[in-house]
């Protein structure tokens, strides 16, 4: 997936405002954790576990979790 497209989609999923890039901090609540699980499953056909998302503090952490090879 194109990273710019990913940022746009992620921003909508998390209902965040402002510019998003890999350094953007993300604070996952219960609802946004659920939204990320659905987003990754739907777009990457990959299951991320709730426990793995506990270590996600910024967008780069999420990209790493999904797998850098899945981005262009």
């Amino acid at each position, binding site marked *: 997936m194109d990273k710019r497209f990913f940022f746009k989609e992620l921003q909508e999923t998390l209902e965040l405002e402002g510019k998003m890039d890999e350094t953007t901090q993300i604070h996952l*609540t*219960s*609802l946004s*954790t*659920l939204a990320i*699980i*659905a987003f990754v*499953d*739907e777009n990457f056909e990959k*299951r991320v*576990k*709730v426990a793995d*998302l506990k270590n996600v503090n910024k967008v780069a952490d999420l990209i790493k979790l999904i797998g850098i090879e899945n981005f262009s």
Partner: protein
Amino acid sequence: MHIASIEYYLPEIIVDNAQLAQEFPEWAAEKIFDKIGIARRHVARKDETALDMAVKVSEVIFENYDKNKIDFILLCTQSPDYFLPTSACILQEKLGLPKNTGALDFNLGCSGFIYGLALAKGLITGNIANNVLLVTSETYSKHIHLKDKANRSIFGDGAAATIISRSERNGILEFELGTDGNGMNNLIVPNGGFRAKFNIDEKDIVDDNGNVRNNNCLWMNGPEIFDFTIENVPPLVTRVLEKNMLSIETIDYVILHQANKYMLDYLRKKMKIPPGKFYQNMEETGNTVSSTIPIALKDCIEKGTVKSGSKVLLAGFGVGYSWGAVVIEI
């Protein structure tokens, strides 16, 4: 055998999103509806129990069914009046059913209606019963902390009564059931049993979203439950279709446990079920746990969404973890 009749009962007290938004100012009424698809939920009075609701809904179903034909009661609840005696035994007496009626409770949540149908089928097939009264009745509101906005928004109280009768028809087809007790801590009331007794001094804990809970109350780990659901429900639906030698195309309608809008939207898309054959309506009731499926089924029959001869896939899943699915023919 077939499902001969269904009725449901919702308590009189209604909590709408505006009331929740008043109690939790950070939780806007529109946002609640957008996220979970619930506008109102019914809540039992302080002195109204799941057994009281079971009596009420059974009395409604007996307005058009001879109660003396019932020879077995199955009562599904996780909010019993007592540890003992069994609520179903008290229900037999309150309804004035014959003393040769078998009766038992079973403790399941959102998979409860499916398991109830499976038990009823077994009782009838085994020549143990002819007409089974299956009651699902739940008052989760009594388990939920008053300051837990997430769970108060999602769950509603309610009861449903279903009569399953012996007949020439094959109205209850093949089942697929499953269990994974490893998920026990993700939907639990920790205190109140004998592992950890109710503790009046239990300290409140506030989570990241501002929900207040303590160990005497219901805890739900929403993301873990969602994770469990997306992992288990699509294969469950596939397996029950295979067992019945059917496909989504040959099924007339699909009714899943009405957990919340977000989860249902996601499951429908993932399983590629057309919106026209997928039930989604919890706006007026919320998640009534074991009663969401019979409430939905009654709604579909009344609206003519499903008709005589329709093949309907039902699936329930949740606390335990426990899950089950079946195909019925109306």
